[in-house]
């Protein structure tokens, strides 16, 4: 039987930098194949080569047994049955689902005019293949992120789709939505299409994928059946080292060991939050704030960080009222780290300017000295990056710069909102270390994320925000992925005691 994809000995270099050094990638028909590796390992270049966007220096690509010409372009790749869905999805919000799909499949016309009902029917058919229930007439802008992803997937299924490359499509989705995407991908696989699945979330590999290939330094280091490997092995392949389990030792007396309260919130209410939330954050503590997307956990974090005014209720830091003005929050020592780099990074400015966007007033020389110390301390790569534009750094390194910016101010309260979104596993564990050290040094830390796995790993206790229901607090041994998922989905929690539930 032919392989769905057979890429052999692909090399590609950019001005002396070897992005790919003879990498192989082989996918069987009807399998979901994970492509893993740290940022800079060569995954993106490999995908660009497959898409016909970058021409390889050498090597061959065959799809379903048919060799592509050495100079194939994006339209040749599409004709051969290769499809690509990137994280940004490439949908137009102001147009309907059917129109978005028709842009790729071609509009059905009658007498030169668009036949709307035919286009709708076509879109419904493609969505139906994947068992999705999105209505073709809906405006894409009105859909949730998960539904948008499903539309992009359905669009990729048109024609003879032999291989669909999914490039970090779940990176910004909360866990329950990821499960929905997985169902859709399985439906596609069961129709015989192969999927190349690029992700930084390792647990996805084990719940969804059949096989995996790990890349490092421009070459494939391992290809394996998922069933015959384990998380530790995969991490070693990816990083070339073993990442120690960052889980803190937890015991039941942890709660008594808390420091004095630093941030106290009473009766926060408004927008998605329909049940008042009260909580307190203590010195030296990492408190997880989590929930599914749409639960309002993100907005709650913004209120607690004092960067957005809360319609009802109040947040006090050391007895001082937070007004929802970023300026005031920073002034009194409450700092926010956002994982959404469009809200946190100044892409065209240099790394040094990103470290000190407010200026220091101490002169450039002093600033350069501090910048190189921070770059060293936070392990920002490449070395000596301070005069490089921020956009020249990988996502993980940009995030380290954003962390360094906040941490160097030694704030009393740090609110992290999805702080490791789109960051590779090595950088992620580095950032977790930074968070723990800051807490150990006496900062009070709020860790907002929809990634239950990560919250369970980093936080001392967690509050799960649920739509239209009382938030649930989980701590100690109960703080694990399963328990959090159940709680978030309003499932009955059998062992939760009444003291652990917030008033």
């Amino acid at each position, binding site marked *: 039987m032919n392989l769905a994809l057979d890429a052999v000995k692909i090399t590609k270099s950019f001005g002396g930098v070897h992005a790919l050094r003879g990498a192989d990638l082989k996918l069987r028909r009807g399998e979901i194949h994970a492509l893993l590796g740290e940022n800079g390992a060569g995954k993106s270049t490999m995908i660009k080569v497959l898409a016909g966007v970058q021409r390889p220096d050498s090597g061959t690509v065959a799809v379903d047994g048919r060799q592509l010409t050495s100079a194939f372009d994006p339209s040749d790749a599409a004709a051969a049955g290769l499809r690509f869905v990137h994280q940004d999805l490439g949908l137009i919000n102001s147009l309907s689902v059917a129109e978005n799909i028709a842009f790729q499949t071609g509009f059905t016309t009658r007498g030169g005019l668009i036949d709307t009902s035919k286009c709708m029917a076509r879109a419904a058919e493609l969505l139906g293949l994947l068992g999705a229930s999105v209505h073709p007439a809906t405006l894409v802008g009105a859909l949730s992120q998960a539904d948008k992803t499903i539309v992009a997937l359905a669009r990729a299924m048109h024609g003879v789709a032999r291989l669909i490359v999914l490039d970090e499509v779940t990176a910004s989705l909360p866990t329950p939505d990821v499960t929905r995407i997985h169902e859709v991908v399985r439906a596609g696989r069961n129709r015989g299409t192969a999927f190349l699945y690029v992700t930084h979330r390792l647990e996805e590999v084990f719940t969804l994928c059949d096989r995996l290939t790990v890349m490092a330094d421009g070459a494939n280091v391992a290809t394996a059946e998922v069933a015959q490997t384990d998380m530790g092995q995969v991490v070693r392949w990816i990083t070339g080292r073993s990442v120690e389990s960052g889980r803190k030792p937890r015991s039941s007396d942890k709660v008594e060991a808390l420091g004095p309260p630093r941030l106290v919130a009473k009766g926060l209410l408004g927008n998605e939050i329909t049940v008042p939330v009260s909580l307190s954050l203590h010195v030296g503590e990492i408190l997880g704030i989590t929930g599914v997307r749409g639960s309002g956990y993100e907005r709650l974090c913004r209120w607690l960080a004092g960067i957005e005014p809360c319609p009802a209720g109040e947040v006090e830091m050391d007895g001082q009222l937070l007004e929802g003005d970023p300026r005031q929050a920073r002034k009194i020592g409450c700092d926010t780290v956002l994982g959404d780099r469009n809200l946190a990074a100044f892409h065209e400015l240099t790394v040094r300017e990103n470290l000190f966007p407010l200026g220091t007033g101490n002169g450039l020389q002093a600033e350069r000295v501090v910048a190189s110390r921070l770059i060293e301390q936070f392990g920002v790569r490449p070395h000596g*990056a301070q005069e490089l534009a921020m956009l020249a750094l990988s996502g993980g390194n940009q995030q380290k710069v954003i962390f360094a910016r906040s941490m160097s101010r030694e704030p009393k309260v740090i609110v992290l909102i999805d702080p490791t979104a789109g960051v590779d596993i090595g950088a992620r564990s580095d950032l977790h270390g930074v968070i723990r050290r800051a807490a150990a040094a006496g900062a009070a830390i709020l860790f907002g994320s929809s990634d239950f796995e990560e919250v369970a790993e980093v936080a001392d206790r967690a509050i799960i925000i649920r739509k239209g229901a009382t938030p649930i607090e989980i701590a100690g041994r109960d703080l694990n992925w399963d328990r959090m998922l159940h709680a978030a989905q309003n499932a009955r929690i059998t062992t939760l005691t009444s003291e652990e539930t917030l008033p």
Partner: protein
Amino acid sequence: MTALTKTQSGTSFGGRSQILVRFSLPLLLIVVVTIFSIALPNTYPTLINAQTIMATNAVLALLALAAIPTLVTSQFDLSIGFQLAFAQSICAGLIIYGNWHPVAAVTVTLSAGFVFGLINGWLVAYCGLNAFITTLASGIVIQGATQWYTNGGSVFGMMPPAFLALGRSSILGIPLPFFYALVFACSLWLLYSHTPWGRRAFAVGGNSRAAHLMGIPVERMVVQAFVAGSLLAATAGILSTSILGSANPNIGVNFLLPAFAAVFLGAAPAGPGRFNAWGTVLAVYALAAGIAGLQQLGSAFYIEQFFNGGALLVAIGLARYAGVRRSRKSSN
């Protein structure tokens, strides 16, 4: 690991061309002066020619500097050319027709510029209007005001010699207006490269939402940028009054396009969004030196437009090419 090897090879491969890009404007100026000095050995490399170029382009240099504050914050002030014409007419009119003391006339002109910048900034920052359209509209309005005040004709007559001396004297053979341009360029450079305020302005321009979340008062910074630009444009207008000893209400458009050409040319080697004072002044004088040479060779008056536009297109083309090469090297 990979990132490290990348930059190492990146510097060894791209170092020389990077330096070439960085110093392309001084190089351009040197090349232009050398070529015309060889072609026109009797008229071009002379003190009088240099003095003429320095003096006649100082107003343009000031106006080009006036475009910087708004551009740094990712805004756009299209009205600066018309503000220059307005300032020139008001200043000349108050002195000649109103018999005002020059100090009073200059104060009123600068105050008018301040208020105009405040209005533009308020409309853009607090009312959320598009800067390009807003300043196009307010520019047309202020041009109308200039025509109204001057009745559409030139303003000329007697002016106090002391006021004229400010624009027409020179020290050690170097015309005073050129000094003014250098002083303002130096101040802007200090402000934008060495003060927290300047850093914040670049932060606002780079990503205004991130700047807001960092606690930077974005709206206030934008208003300040418009006010700074308007004050510089008014200063350019006052300087031109003192050089000319008269005013022409219709010169706004003539200055507007060359000023913007110089700012963008000055920013091209520094990278996207890197508007800077020294680059701008260098660009003004490199272009002026080229145009003066071409005109002495007998080119027609419209060669100026071809040269300005052509140079800008070549510069942004080269900057883009260099930028693409840079990003290819550092991304994967």
